[in-house]
């Protein structure tokens, strides 16, 4: 029984034992980035770990804060990112990137990309809560940002983006409704994280779709070869497919994976706050577990995971709990009645391959 998601609930659900923490002896590190001009306060992390971190070894301060910090009020998103990245990827050196205090004319997300292009030594895993509607961005901007993700992937950085909180999304194109994909979630060079809920809200049980979980098919990027088979399998077997006019079946499909996104406890401005929901929560959780896998890989003399998708789809989601129940939200009209895609066996455009089962995931990703 639990009254909302805390680190203990996350660690219990994803089979993390008290031993599944960073060793503190490697150069392993992780980072979270958010661009909402929110401050992050270390005192919140300390209070959070005092309340929720007793059952596992953890750090109570971040290794580096990139971006000016001030005396303003902490933001819930900034607090949530750090607190759950450092609970899932416990006892691993953590950077925080937040952008308040930037020049008024700068674009915070672009400034983060410049940082990636200017620092040789960066954390191996980056969890990022940022997304825009694909159709609101110029193709010049989208293509260039995608090239920046290729640069990061070639360096062995793992970029995890939240899939968004509007389900399949919805907009009207020449009078007809269509689903609305989100970017950078739709980039073929990042790993996108969707959201789930517990089937029984107050119990640690199996997970179902969280109806806000972003997912769908890009209108900009063609489907990468690494996911063609998985997507074809879904499209040929799903009993709940929306009308084909709503989505571009040949586009890059996302998300790739998922984690709990419903009902989190967060400490912000020293106040414990319940029921916080969004894929901004599931992304740092999944990122923290990948950092733990990297920890074991580094201790075994192996390189970090890097860009995960080709391996993830080759291994057909080995090491993940498959989420097969529930649908995410979409257009509220007669035709689809608010329902987008629905989860099914294997990969699906709502929860990807599913949520992490750490011992099995470690086994699947440790070698080579």
């Amino acid at each position: 029984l639990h009254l909302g998601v805390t680190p203990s609930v996350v660690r219990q659900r994803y089979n993390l034992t008290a031993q599944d923490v960073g060793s503190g002896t490697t150069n392993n590190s992780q980072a979270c980035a958010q661009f909402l001009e929110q401050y992050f306060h270390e005192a919140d992390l300390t209070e959070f770990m005092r309340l929720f971190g007793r059952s596992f070894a953890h750090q109570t301060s971040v290794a580096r804060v990139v971006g000016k910090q001030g005396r303003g009020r902490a933001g819930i998103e900034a607090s949530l990112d750090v607190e759950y990245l450092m609970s899932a990827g416990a006892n691993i050196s953590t950077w925080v990137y937040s952008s308040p205090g930037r020049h008024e004319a700068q674009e915070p997300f672009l400034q983060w990309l410049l940082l990636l292009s200017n620092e040789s030594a960066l954390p191996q895993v980056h969890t990022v809560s940022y997304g825009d509607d694909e159709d609101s961005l110029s193709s010049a901007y989208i293509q260039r940002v995608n090239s920046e993700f290729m640069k990061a992937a070639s360096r062995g950085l793992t970029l995890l983006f939240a899939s968004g909180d509007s389900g399949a999304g919805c907009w009207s194109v020449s009078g007809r409704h269509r689903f609305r994909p989100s970017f950078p979630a739709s980039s073929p060079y990042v790993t996108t994280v969707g959201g789930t809920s517990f089937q029984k809200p107050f119990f640690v049980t199996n997970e179902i779709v969280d109806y806000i979980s972003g997912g769908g098919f890009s209108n900009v990027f063609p489907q990468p070869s690494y996911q063609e088979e998985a997507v074809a399998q879904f499209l040929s077997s799903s009993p709940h497919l929306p009308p084909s006019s709503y989505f571009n079946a040949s586009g890059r499909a996302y998300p790739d994976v998922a984690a709990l996104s419903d009902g989190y406890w967060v400490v912000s401005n020293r106040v414990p706050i319940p029921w916080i929901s969004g894929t901004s929560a599931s992304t740092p959780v999944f990122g923290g577990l990948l950092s733990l896998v990297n920890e074991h890989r580094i201790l075994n003399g192996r390189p970090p995971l890097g860009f995960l998708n080709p391996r993830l789809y080759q291994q057909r989601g080995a090491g993940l709990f498959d989420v097969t129940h529930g649908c995410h939200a979409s257009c509220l009209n007669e035709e689809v009645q608010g329902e987008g895609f629905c989860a099914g066996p294997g990969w699906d455009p709502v929860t990807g391959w599913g949520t992490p089962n750490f011992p099995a995931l470690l086994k699947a990703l440790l070698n080579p």
Partner: protein
Amino acid sequence: SYSPEPDQQWTVPPGWVSLGRADPEEDLSLTFALRQQNLERLSELVQAVSDPASPRYGKYLSLEDVAELVQPSPLTRHTVQKWLMAAGAWNCHSVTTQDFLTCSLSIRQAELLLSGAEFHRYVGGPTDTYVLRSPHPYQLPQALAPHVDFVGGLHRFPPISSLKQRPEPQVAGTVG
């Protein structure tokens, strides 16, 4: 002249309020994305280092390797720097990969450099953030078309948080 981003949404997103035209003597910081080289090769390398079946799996590039591969051509760097200097934008700095230039210049200089742009100050978002943005599209001299992907700092507003405090967990099953 030409528009590098004809399909960029430049209308003001909901939740942001214009405080009017910004003072032309105010300082501005703009980011110029310079055209990179060898992106095809980069894509092949990503595939090679990310596929467990590849002999090159896990043999990642350093930042310097990436810089050597994608850095803009000397012609691109020279053309863009000459154009910026001619407009009085001397205070610029690059990154290791040399494919971004961030310049500080006055709003007056910026509006001369990017024809059509008009900088206004806006306030919005959950923390009353102030931003300078242009509600009109910008154009660049045609000669720059092969050298500049886009200019950052004109149209895209900071994102608004999508986290929600749901009063109670959703009941299992159907969409709320």
